[in-house]
């Protein structure tokens, strides 16, 4: 099993969700996050005072999937989250040791 974490632009969330549903991903967890990468922050101006905003708002998506789905999932996120401009985000893939469905006690791929 694999665990996929993707950092994307917030306004791309709906497209990514649709793309993942379409290829059979059963569930995702979404968190609003802030961070910095190669995309520079921006300057905000309040009356006389200027503030550089370094940490930009992003959305973090997490999904647990079967190992055979990984290529499809990466492709789906890549396509749906892309604007072609700097700041589109990144996808991280981890090996996943165990999954347990709390209600039934199922484990492994049955619990996905």
């Amino acid at each position, binding site marked *: 099993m694999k665990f996929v974490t993707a950092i994307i632009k917030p306004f791309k969330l709906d497209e990514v969700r649709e793309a993942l549903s379409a290829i059979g991903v059963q569930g995702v967890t979404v968190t609003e996050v802030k961070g910095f990468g190669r995309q520079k922050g921006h300057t*905000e*101006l*309040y*009356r*006389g*005072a200027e*503030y550089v*905003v370094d940490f930009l708002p992003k959305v973090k998506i997490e999904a647990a999937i079967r190992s055979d789905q990984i290529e499809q999932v990466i492709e789906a996120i890549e396509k749906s989250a892309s604007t072609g401009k700097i700041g589109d985000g990144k996808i991280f893939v981890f090996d996943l040791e165990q999954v347990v469905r709390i209600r039934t006690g199922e484990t492994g791929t049955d619990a996905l």
Partner: protein
Amino acid sequence: MKHVFALLALVGAVAFGAPAWAEETVAAPAATATAAAPAAAAAAAPAEAAAPALVPNKGDNAWVMMSAALVILMSIPGLALFYGGLVRSKNMLSVLMQVFTVFSLISVLWVVYGYSAAFTEGNQFFGVLDKLFLKGVTVESVGATFSKGVVISELAFVIFQGAFAAITCGLIVGAFAERARFAAILVFMVIWFTLSYIPMAHMVWFWAGPDAYIDAAAGEAAGKTAGFLFQKGALDFAGGTVVHINAAIAGLVGAYMIGKRTGLGNVAMAPHSLTFTMIGASLLWFGWFGFNAGSALEASGGAALAMVNTWVATACAALSWMFAEWMIKGKPSMLGAASGAVAGLVAITPAAGFVGVMGAIVIGLLAGIVCLWGVNGLKKLLGADDSLDVFGIHGVGGILGAILTGVFVDPALGGTGVYDYVANKVGDFDMATQVIAQLWGVGTVIVWSGVVSIVAFKLVDIVIGLRVAEDEEREGLDVTSHGETAYHH
């Protein structure tokens, strides 16, 4: 606890100190004791029973009471939200609390001794304490308006003026937001209200009322009982000097004496909710119709003029600030538009019932641009951390408005001119004389409020300490001063 005791001690000192100046003033004008005070004269002078007792006009009464409620709305929540949105989220409640509590505190002091000391006949600077605890002010008492033979209920005048005193003190807290000690603010307000607000209100607004100006001799005698700046001929329709410059100077002195916020220049101090600031600015605008048009004290054409001016000058200032910012900084901002609106409200305050609508447009347009400079160039020159730009907007806008009132009151420029209550017509107008009178007003309030503020802040610093500990400041005043948080994420 020791803060509370210190506070009580200072309140006591002020209360016991007050009769001292009251006695002096009773002795001085004893010869003119029968001259009409602005209020209560008609009701409490049975000797002059020849004229029928004046009965308040119900329409005027309704308008002044409604206006008082509007001024309270613009203070809480208006001013509180305008300021609250501008601070960081960890200090939101501290600002709301400061405005809310100062408003409550001054309201009580107003009926205890404030009204009496400001609006009774004494010397040119203070009234007397004859109406302590509103003694003698009954449902029958009446107060003068600006028309002969027209009066309103004195109690309506009491609450209308009391709301002004309360919002003025509330304005000051913006200058040292995010770092001042709560107890220090309360004690400072008691001293400053007593020694700066009350005398400024008396100097600018106390007069014998139009009915005392029967002929030239009576007019001259009545004129001598008026406040210092009233006698100088300074015009201040709704409180440009008494409210805005007065509060702004106190704020600026406070910002210097309390010192800069920890981390200023290194830490982001961006406003946490411009949504609240916009709501606050809008409530200020709405409430200001009571503040300015209510200052006519009658539901008259003059009140309508003040209302239209308050509407148009504010809109002009919101636009001029926004366009100037757009040109200079590249983007038109919500904060700029809201700040411009408040600058326009401040600048039109002394002029509201005196200038024509075209005069209001010019005052508004200039206020937006000049106050934008006030929060940028001038702020850097002054070097004080005036957190929410009380001086940049209320001080600069107030001074601009006070001076331009002297220009645009000119009947040749569409103003109303200055009414001569002896001749019962608009008097001859000389712009230079009027502008000099206005400068007297501006200069007096700057010096008076400046000196009182320096002494008051110094005293509070010694007794209580003006600012919170650095750790508390970093953690935020909501939790450390008040034990609660504005937002639960």
